């Protein structure tokens, strides 16, 4: 019951904020809505027993990436309205309709495919059982999610992890090169 209340509240807020993000006239407002949106999504993650990802969501998305957006929005302080010119060939509104259509179709598919009602929870396909932290309690707030995630990340997904760190390094260098006026 409580879960349902929280979920529906969050869902409405998330979607509403999402719409505000894409519809806000001021870019700064967009950013603000985005931050709140992300924070709410983080709460959603906590509900789903993914505390670590939730924290990361706040730390990286809200605390890092969106700050970056905010910076850029401010640096690009436009004297003229950013959207004053529209190319006559654009198909934005058709696109919106199309997106709506796709959404409807997806909903149809999802609803239709969940006809079986309760999806069977396949316990422990890969997760707690495989990690040394199997004995951890499953409390909603005090659990071993972080340890397990760390274990999986540094064993099974070690190479992707390293690749990702390499990607970040390259991106960092690339961003510096792009943004710096004189090297």
């Amino acid at each position: 019951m409580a879960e349902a209340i929280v979920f529906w509240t969050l869902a409405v807020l998330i979607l509403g904020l999402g719409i505000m993000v894409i519809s806000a006239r001021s870019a700064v407002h967009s950013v603000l809505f985005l931050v709140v949106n992300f924070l709410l999504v983080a709460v959603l993650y906590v509900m789903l027993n993914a505390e670590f990802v939730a924290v990361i969501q706040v730390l990286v998305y809200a605390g890092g990436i969106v700050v970056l957006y905010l910076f850029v929005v401010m640096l690009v302080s436009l004297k003229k309205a950013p959207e004053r010119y529209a190319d006559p060939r654009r198909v934005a509104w058709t696109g919106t309709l199309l997106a709506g259509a796709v959404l409807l179709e997806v909903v149809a598919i999802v609803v239709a495919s969940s006809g079986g009602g309760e999806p069977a929870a396949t316990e422990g396909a890969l997760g707690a059982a495989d990690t040394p932290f199997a004995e951890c309690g499953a409390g909603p707030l005090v659990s071993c999610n972080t340890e397990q995630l760390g274990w999986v990340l540094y064993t099974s997904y070690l190479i992707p992890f390293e690749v990702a760190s390499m990607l970040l390094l390259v991106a960092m260098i690339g961003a510096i090169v792009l943004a710096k006026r004189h090297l």
Partner: protein
Amino acid sequence: MLEITPLHYSLLSAALFMIGVIGVLVRRNVIIIFMSIELILNAVNINLIALSDQLQDLAGQVFVVFVIAVAAAEAAVGLGIIIAFYRNKETVNIDEIQIMRW
């Protein structure tokens, strides 16, 4: 309606995804387009986390971590490009960014 299943999360995810898509299609400010893309990524993340919880499989969360990392990289480079472009052209209107078409 009161029982929250992964189906609900999936629908939420799909809706958020489509909001992002619409943002990408409609807005002309590149920064906002980027933000829409972040929305899309988040929508995907919701789906992944929900299914990870459902299946009791950490792979979903791991994937989210990677998505966040890639999103950070994408934001850094993308915004860098925007800054560089803005410095030269004084605009962030995507309709005016089309000189590379040939």
